Structures are given as structure tokens and as C-alpha cells.
């Protein structure tokens, strides 16, 4: 199984999932079979006034994952991730990264066909 990016608050499997995709603190890049992981910081996206989701999608793409697990994905991030051929599991909240991976492996995560958040305007 390919690697999975999970939006998270801290670089740990027991971190809570960060429900915001674009403005997540970072992404845990997890091998779902071995649970080996690395961490991609997303702080630069958090500081952007606009386009955070697009930058986060670039960050995730560069880590080489095929799946993203997160809470809410806006329209631009959705378009960017789709162009990258990355599947999006959304509506995950109030669980840890480890639990999100387990849910995904059990086939309990609904894979998105459309963004579930409106874009933000400044």
C-alpha cells in the first residue's frame, strides 16, 4: 500500500488529526503497513493570507503520497490534489493519526468526490 499523508497537529502517530487541510500544522507521512512515518511541516501555508490549500497540496505532493486523510478540503486544494492523482479521505475529526490510518485500512473512510468546504476570501 502506498504512503498516506495525514494532517496533524504534532509530529506523532498519537497526535490529533488537524481537521483543516490547508492550514494544518503539518502532515504525517505514514507507511500504513509498518506505521513508519516522517513529518512534513506546513507552517508556511498557515501564514499565507490566501492560497494555503494550494501550497499544502504542493507540500503533500512532494512527499510522494497517493492518499490524504484530513477533515476539510477547500475547492482549490481539492483541484490541486486531484490533478496530482491523490485520493482524499475527508470529514475526519477528533481522532488520532493512528486511528485515522486504522479506519482507512478497514475501508471506513469515505473517499471524497468534491470539496467539503467553501473557499475563503480576504
Amino acid at each position, binding site marked *: 500500500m502506498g504512503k498516506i499523508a495525514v494532517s496533524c497537529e504534532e509530529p506523532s502517530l498519537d497526535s490529533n488529526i488537524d481537521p483543516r487541510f490547508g492550514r494544518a500544522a503539518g502532515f504525517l507521512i505514514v507507511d500504513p503497513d509498518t506505521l513508519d512515518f516522517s513529518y512534513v511541516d506546513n507552517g508556511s501555508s498557515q501564514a499565507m493570507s*490566501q492560497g494555503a490549500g494550494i501550497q499544502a*497540496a504542493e507540500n503533500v505532493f512532494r512527499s510522494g503520497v497517493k492518499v490524504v486523510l484530513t477533515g476539510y478540503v477547500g475547492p482549490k486544494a481539492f*483541484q*490541486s490534489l486531484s490533478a*496530482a492523482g491523490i485520493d482524499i479521505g475527508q470529514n475526519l475529526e477528533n481522532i488520532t493519526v493512528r486511528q485515522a490510518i486504522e479506519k482507512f485500512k478497514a475501508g471506513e473512510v469515505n473517499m471524497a468526490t468534491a470539496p467539503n468546504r467553501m473557499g475563503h476570501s480576504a
Partner: protein
Amino acid sequence: MQPMRKMRGNMPVKAIVVIGETVLSFPEMCHSCGGCMEVCPEKAITETGRELGVIERGSKNGLEFVHGKLRVGEAMSPPLIRKVREYARPEALTIIDAPPGTSCPVITSMKGTDFVLLVTEPTPFGLHDLKLAVGAVNILNIPCGLIINRSDMGDDKVNIYAEKENLPILMEIPFDRKIAEAYSRGEMIVDVMPEWKEKFLELHHQIEEMSFHKNH
């Protein structure tokens, strides 16, 4: 794809994104800086227009009025504000109604003006935002003065701050139901309460004396 990446790196906003072999563009993110056309070695990028909103004009009793209506969903208003400001005639008195705060639309509205009239309220919230606004006006180096609206409410902290910062309080407008009612009908305070006419003329006179134009 290498030149594309170079282009992306140069861009202040996320209007063009390269993901693998796919290039995506997000027109609503574009600030029209032209940087992408500048760095593209293939000259593959050209410019086109995009509707940000509409400008409407009218006049009454010798007063001309111009405003811009931003397209619903549009993220950026400064280009539209600049277009509206192009209608200002240098020889005539121009009043620009700026939004509250210190964001880009506010700066775009204030830049290059002769005077900034800051309208505040005597509340902690009003004072907080006033301090930010004064900071922005000082950076732009424009003379400014205050109007305290609903001046008979709240506390005296705005007055204390104004004195400390040497900001002239040019007018105080009390909380008055008659003013609110007139406003809600789109009527001007000077038409409904003629006693205010003299005060506004005096305000105009004071602003003229303090303005950048007068003193440079």
C-alpha cells in the same frame, strides 16, 4: 517543467501551480504582477482581462458620486478601488469612504490622499482598532484627525489616547436616535438636523488647514 517551477518560485501568490506534469491556474488568485510573463523563457504566457466588478456613477445637487461593486466571490478589491479612484478630479474636493481596519482595501483608499479622517467610538474595541489605523496612517505619513462617534457612550480612553498622541479631535457626534433614523432612510445629517451644517463646514475648514496639500 523546470522553467515552470522557476516561474512558480517567483510568484507572490498561488495563481499558477505545477503538480507533477500538470499545470493548474487559479485566475482569482492573480494579482496581475506580470512576473510569470517576465520569467517564462518560452513566452508562453499572455495576459487577458477579468471582470472584478462594476463601477457605477451618479450625481445630485452638483455632487458627483462613483462607487465600485465587487463581483460576488471576488477575493481582491484593491484593483477595483484604484479604478474608482481614477474618476477623482484633482481640482475638486474628493471624499473617499474607506472600509474600517488596516487591510489592503483601506491602504488603497488612503494612499496619496491629503488627509485621513478617522472615525472611532469611545469603547475599548474602538480604541483598539483606532491604534492600528493610526499606525497605518503614520507609516503613510498623512495628516489625520479624529471624529468620535456616539461620543456620549463608553469611556474616555480614546480622548486620553488622542491627547497623548497629539491627534486632534475634530468633531464629537453623540448617540442620537434622530441621526440613526435619518441614516436608515439614506438622508444626510445636515439635511435632517440643520444645526449640524455649521459644524461640518467648520470640520471641512479645519481639514483644509491641516491637509498635506496645504502644508507642502
